């Protein structure tokens, strides 16, 4: 049997949480906001000094999820063992309730390209990702979640729909899925997919967490609009609606508000989290999407 997705010590509840960034460390310490859990980027706590000391203090009040942005599960050349070791060191110190990574790649020939780059949806890429998820789960000795990407291009030789790729990774490795509802919306708009069909294609029992964020819209030279996943604004109504569909299908799931550019005051994040919490309560009370509308 695989160990449970959640940690033994500090489980992440099926409630709304917020992404914690450096700008809010001191405010969170000073005001101890009423928030069910928080998530941080693992890479931000790999050094010594003050960031880890803040997180040591903050995690006494709220369980923490570690969300990695740099392991590059989709790299053809394999995982960087030093990066895996740093992730494990942070996890041993922080005792996170959840750990997650992305279905993406960032590293080629040892060069870190500092973005979550798109994978071709091929059997080769699926094998590579599954091998690396197995490697990470064995190394950190727990199940992880993998997040569906937001993408701006697709590849000529892709053969597997993205939702089937996600489902296959979970089925083959036993990992869970971090369902980023904003990413589904962004990619569906950018590639002409049906976002509801994407959600319907994911296995409900594998969903361990949901992400919500804002995105930007840019006009391209060919006259088409492209949606950019910049985490720089509030969640838009269409994504809230898709989130309600996701909850109706998956049941109550830990849900995170992410904000990484133009970071607003903490209160704005808490307001967005309360909105997500209200939708979770509706699902718990059996209020359907149609009733709530």
């Amino acid at each position, binding site marked *: 049997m695989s160990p449970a997705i959640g940690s033994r010590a500090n489980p992440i509840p099926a409630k709304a949480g917020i992404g914690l960034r450096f700008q809010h460390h001191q405010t969170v310490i000073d005001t101890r906001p009423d928030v069910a859990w928080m998530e941080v980027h693992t890479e931000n706590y790999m050094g010594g000094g003050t960031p880890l000391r803040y997180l040591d203090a903050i995690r006494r009040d709220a369980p923490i999820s570690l969300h990695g942005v740099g392991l590059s599960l989709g790299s053809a050349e394999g995982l960087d063992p030093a990066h895996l070791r740093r992730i494990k060191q942070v996890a041993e110190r922080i005792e996170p309730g959840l750990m997650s990574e992305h279905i993406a790649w960032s590293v080629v020939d040892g060069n870190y390209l500092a973005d979550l780059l798109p994978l071709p949806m091929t059997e080769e890429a699926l094998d590579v990702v599954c091998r690396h998820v197995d490697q990470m789960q064995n190394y950190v000795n727990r199940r992880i979640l993998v997040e569906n990407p937001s993408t701006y*291009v697709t590849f000529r030789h892709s053969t597997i729909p993205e939702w089937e790729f996600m489902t296959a990774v979970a089925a083959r490795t036993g990992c869970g899925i971090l369902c980023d509802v904003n990413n589904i919306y962004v990619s569906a708009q950018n590639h002409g997919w049906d976002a509801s069909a994407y959600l319907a294609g994911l296995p409900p029992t594998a969903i361990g967490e949901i992400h919500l964020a804002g995105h930007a819209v840019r006009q391209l030279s060919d006259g088409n609009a492209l949606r950019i996943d910049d985490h720089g604004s509030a969640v838009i109504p269409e994504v809230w609606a898709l989130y309600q569909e996701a909850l109706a299908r998956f049941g109550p799931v830990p849900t995170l508000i992410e904000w990484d550019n133009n970071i607003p005051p903490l209160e704005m994040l808490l307001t967005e989290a309360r909105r997500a919490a209200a939708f979770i309560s509706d699902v718990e009370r059996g209020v359907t999407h149609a009733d709530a509308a």
Partner: protein
Amino acid sequence: MPTLLELQRAMRASVVQHDASAMVEALAIGVEPGRLDIYRNTIVSGLTRALRLAFPAVAHLVGDDFFAGAAAAFIREHLPGKAYLDQYGGEFPDFLSGFPPAISLPYLADVARLEWAVSRALHAPDDAPLDLSRLAALSADDQDRVRFQPHPSVSLLQSDFPADEIWRAVLDADDQALGNIDLIGVPIFLLVERGRSGVAVTRLQEPAWQFLDALCRGESLPSAIDCATDVDAPSLLAEHLASGRFAAFLLDADDAIAPSEAA
């Protein structure tokens, strides 16, 4: 059909080296290649932001546009080797010293070296300082064979410019202090470390700096004393130990022969 590795190399050629043809065959029919600009922009802006965080005084000295241009040129030559960006930018000072547009600011690379040392000190691992009881337990003969390992937050720098005064005045936005700095000064010798109350940048006298530099390079105590004339070695050493400037020590007999000795 490209393998995954071929595709990833093509993507790097496209988004980092601006090779317009690299990805044309790989994109799905109807996907406008201009969409790759989103990845290009994210990579450059993310790495530029990391450099700006590590080199705030340099960014201020040269202005936003110049900094962005220097960063873009640097990024094309020096992609990070780790997905841990606190360690990105170590080659930026040397890059600036050879960057023709920066030639009118001869002190810029030294200010950058100081900022890199400060950044290293900020993010250094929380290694425990040397256990003094282990040192005290050594015989007098063995104490002469001790080779210290510096704490990872410690850096030693020298400059022919008052890089520390420039750095402080810029970060304090003190234009008056900046205007009063005499650029034709004397060489300065700096110690950068993370102490109990944060990162400290301290000027040392040259002999004291030479002594500490020799110890940090792993010289034994007698040979470090030879490197520095007229220093009060026992009291300096006591201060370094009390300040936690060393993380560990070896006895020279424990070491493999260093390459220079083997040659």
